[in-house]
């Protein structure tokens, strides 16, 4: 009994000692440290002045000085918590708020709310909810706005708890010192093939070298880094230059999948407007303001253009929306050569809170955006929505933890492959402030396959191996192909500016056109799944070149690198007509061939003395004699089509080569390990060609 009494007394004494006394900046409390007191009090008062002007970073510097002298003032702890809450390292605010409360529970009426936010930011969902509930109890019921706010925060904690319990399988990697610095880096945009990244930096080499008085950080500039094609490493980032960057804030707000159109956000122009800069000869040109349908007198920020250049998604605060920024779409008006009227994406996507940071994936059917309104785990979270066949955007899905955090998560872009996402984050092991990170999506767990056996047959010694049904792995991968490369003159190998046309073969419709870069000859075409596409490459004075890409609905992601060497119209030149199709095992031309045949007719009409040989080729599967006959009949069918179209038969010859002139030998095909590789090789061998016999 005596022992217990001693323990209770000891604990009471300890508790009394642990209870710190609130120590305001009053000289009587610091009689033996007068000089230091004066300096600290001055810093505290200076901090208060900055605080009142919402200059939290400056206030924090002063408060830190005061804190070094006197950490036991409830109000100072409150102020510091508020400053930190407005920084990139919000998670540090909790300790200040907790201490402020310990020193004086009445330090601020909203102190429990702030402690709740502190726990929330640190992912301590239960304690967050507890303190939000405390605050609710003392809240005036008439204060419905705050009540709604607290209820939303509680709901966010619940969402956070659920999402953290089911984390996404990802790797998160810092992009490294060639991209990140001690200064803030954020807002990344990438080309679909991840060959270039463009982002915002607030570095000391900002154009003009000035800081924003509002937050004490350097003005934003746009930076660019290219990926080394040999090793995949990011090269040293460069300031994108004076064409784009001003002495004010300059930030990228979008990049086309091929990297040729850069969208820029100038927050200080027209209430926040979006401009467009075109890549020409390896340089981004002078930005031009988008038409008023997009860049209105209201605030517009992020923008994202579809792979075919026909849709522009952007965020705007214009009236008539659901509240805050909303996501809109504008369609390209080919007649007026400008973006058409903006359409709000509707209640499925937009809420009464803010939606921004829109990114349309190059597959054309997946959109990512940030929202404060849908089921977030705190602040802005990134959501994904899929467009159905009717073009309706589906219910947004939170892309989960750890991509989303209790803090604001804005500006998230995904590579064409869908394997990688890019975003910014403040992490302790970074280079300082916010850095850019690459997220690798590992997809669902790949289950290992075991092997078992049993003595199923009693009279046999050897056990029977159990046939394990391979588990089906549901992979939410994109269905998309990227075709890229360099267009050159076949003889000189000099880069060429050429026009590329992407054609939907089934509909015989032009999907989009683009031009290779005149300086490098580089091109990149993003091609969504579900169709068979023809690609024609044309340049003045050259024979056209054709490619075919067949991308079934669920074909996954493929990247093709195809350098095209355009040939001059010369005797002996051979061109493969990749977009001529026949019915299976027949010599009947399919309608999908029309576009390619029309191109050939055009060529023959433009060169009226040209004589050509049409040749048919098969793969090595099946009977050789049969293949030879089939290839000859097919070549003949093409010639007959041309004759019907008015080309003189005297200019045309045809020949079937069967399987005698394969592009990929049977021996090489046999060496291929996967079925897909072998099928692709056979496909390459099945073709129609033409050869110039005379001109």
């Amino acid at each position: 009994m005596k022992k217990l009494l001693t323990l209770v007394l000891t604990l009471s004494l300890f508790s009394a000692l642990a209870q710190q006394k609130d120590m305001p900046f009053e000289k009587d409390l610091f009689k033996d440290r007068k000089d230091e007191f004066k300096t600290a009090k001055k810093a505290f008062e200076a901090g208060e002045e900055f605080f009142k002007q919402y200059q939290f970073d400056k206030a924090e510097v002063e408060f830190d000085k005061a804190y070094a002298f006197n950490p036991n003032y409830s109000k100072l702890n409150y102020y510091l918590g508020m400053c930190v809450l407005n920084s990139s390292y919000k998670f540090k605010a909790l300790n200040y708020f907790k201490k402020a409360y310990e020193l004086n529970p009445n330090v601020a009426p909203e102190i429990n709310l702030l402690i709740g936010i502190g726990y929330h930011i640190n992912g301590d969902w239960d304690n967050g909810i507890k303190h939000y509930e405390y605050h609710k109890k003392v809240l005036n019921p008439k204060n419905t706005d705050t009540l709604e706010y607290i209820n939303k925060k509680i709901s966010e904690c619940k969402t956070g708890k659920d999402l953290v319990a089911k984390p996404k399988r990802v790797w998160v990697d810092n992009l490294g010192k060639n991209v990140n610095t001690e200064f803030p880096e954020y807002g990344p945009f990438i080309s679909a093939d991840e060959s270039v990244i463009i982002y915002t930096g607030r570095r000391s080499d900002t154009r003009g070298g000035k800081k924003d008085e509002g937050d004490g950080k350097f003005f934003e500039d746009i930076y660019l880094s290219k990926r080394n094609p040999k090793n995949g490493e990011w090269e040293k980032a460069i300031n994108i230059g004076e064409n784009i960057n001003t002495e004010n804030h300059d930030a990228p707000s979008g990049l086309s999948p091929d990297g040729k159109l850069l969208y820029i956000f100038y927050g200080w122009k027209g209430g926040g407007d979006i401009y467009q800069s075109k890549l020409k000869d390896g340089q981004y040109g002078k930005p031009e303001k988008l038409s008023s349908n997009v860049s209105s007198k209201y605030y517009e920020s992020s923008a994202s253009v579809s792979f075919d250049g026909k849709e522009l998604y952007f965020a705007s605060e214009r009236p008539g929306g659901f509240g805050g920024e909303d996501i809109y779409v504008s369609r390209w008006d080919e007649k007026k050569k400008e973006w058409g009227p903006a359409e709000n994406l509707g209640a499925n996507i937009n809420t009464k809170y803010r939606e921004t940071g829109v990114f349309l994936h190059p597959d054309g059917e997946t959109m990512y955006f940030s929202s404060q309104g849908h089921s977030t785990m705190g602040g802005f979270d990134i959501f994904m929505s899929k467009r159905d066949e009717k073009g309706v955007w589906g219910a947004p899905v939170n892309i989960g933890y750890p991509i989303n955090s209790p803090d604001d998560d804005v500006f998230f872009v995904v590579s064409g492959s869908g394997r990688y996402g890019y975003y910014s984050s403040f992490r302790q092991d970074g280079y300082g402030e916010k850095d850019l990170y690459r997220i690798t999506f590992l997809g669902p767990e790949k289950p290992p396959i075991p092997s078992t056996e049993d003595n199923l047959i009693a009279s046999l010694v050897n056990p029977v191996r159990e046939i394990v049904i391979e588990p089906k792995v549901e992979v939410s991968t994109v269905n998309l192909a990227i075709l890229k490369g360099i267009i050159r003159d076949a003889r000189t190998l000099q880069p060429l500016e050429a026009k590329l046309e992407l054609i939907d073969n089934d509909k015989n419709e032009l999907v989009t056109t683009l031009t290779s870069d005149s300086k490098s000859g580089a091109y990149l075409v993003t091609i969504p799944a579900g169709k068979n596409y023809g690609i024609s490459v044309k340049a003045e004075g050259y024979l056209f070149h054709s490619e075919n890409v067949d991308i079934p609905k669920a074909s996954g992601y493929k990247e093709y690198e195809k350098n095209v060497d355009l040939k001059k119209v010369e005797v002996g030149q051979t061109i493969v007509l990749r977009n001529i199709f026949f019915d299976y095992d027949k010599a009947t031309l399919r309608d999908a061939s029309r576009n390619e045949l029309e191109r050939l007719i055009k060529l023959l009409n433009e060169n009226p003395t040209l004589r050509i040989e049409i040749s048919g080729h098969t793969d090595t599967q099946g009977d050789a004699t049969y293949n030879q006959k089939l290839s000859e009949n097919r070549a003949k069918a093409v010639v007959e089509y041309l004759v019907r179209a008015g080309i003189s038969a005297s200019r045309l010859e045809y020949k079937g080569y069967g399987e005698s002139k394969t592009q990929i030998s049977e021996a090489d095909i046999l060496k291929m390990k996967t079925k897909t590789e072998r099928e692709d090789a056979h496909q390459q061998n099945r073709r129609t060609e033409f050869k110039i016999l005379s001109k």
Partner: protein
Amino acid sequence: MKRIFHLAVFLIAPFALSAQTDTSQVNPEAQQKYNEGVAAYESKKLDEAISRFTEALALDPKFEKALLNRGNAYYEAKKTDKAIADYNTCGQLNGPSADNAWYMKGTAEMDLGQYEEAVKSFTNAANKKNGEAKYHYNLGVAQFQAGNYDDAIGSFSNAIRLKPDYAFAYNDRASAKKKKGDLDGAIKDYESAIQSNPQLTFAYNNLGSVKRQKGDFTGAIQEYNNAIRLKKDYYIAYNNRGMAKMDAGKFEEAIADFNEAIKLKADYAFAYNNRAACYIKMQKYKEAVADCDKAIQLDAAYGVAYLNRGIAKEMLRDLAGACSDWENAAAMGVESGETYYNIYGVCSEVEKYNQK
């Protein structure tokens, strides 16, 4: 195909019987040669026995017993094709030994993996002597091996009807039901097998595997325990119990079982592969790679081990290694290998940058 009971057990009985009977109606000289053949066979002089039986048959081509026993001698001498020919001729004679000849023909065909032929032979044997349970049982085994599980169930049922305590037939009928997906039926039959013969170790193991398939991991582990209690070196049961424990999330215990299986059978590639699978679930990827290495070393065509090694290598961020393994798995017919290889275009990217 190695059978649990050595064939000599079946062979000697009819042979000895043949030597003492049915010889009075044949040519005496042929009978003499025949008896010399029997003596040579008993002295394990198979070539001499074959010569004597051949001489006997030269004198009397329809000497049924000489045909059957020359077939047996050929069979013992591992000249299975010749044995089958003699059994066939003997069976065609349709004499008193025909059922035995058909039965032996079926047995020899099973050895060669000629299951469809074996089904015909055992059917002939059963038709000739319908009351013989073992003919129906072996017909069931041949049908099972040929993948005709419905027919197999019918044949095993016939065997059980003729011999109600036929533990092997219960076990095998259970296996056929398992193959058909009738797991409850399989459990019932395995339990009947055990009831008929409580020492039938493999029936406990098989019962455990059906329970595991049903998701009853506790029940499965109990059955494997029974099997191991009866047969301490039953590595298959250790491997299977490890699987059940892994399925139940008892990874450490599963590893201990796979260790034991490997201790009992050092070249047991399955146990290495399964231990690797367990390590993958435990996120011990280096250990998983080492075990897959060993499994592949033991069986270079073990596609699943390549697939699993690829999974572990991916998690160790050795993407080039993972892609190479998935490609090999795909080439060995493991479909997931091709899926993983093509997913997200990662392996194409690896090739592009040659990254590790």
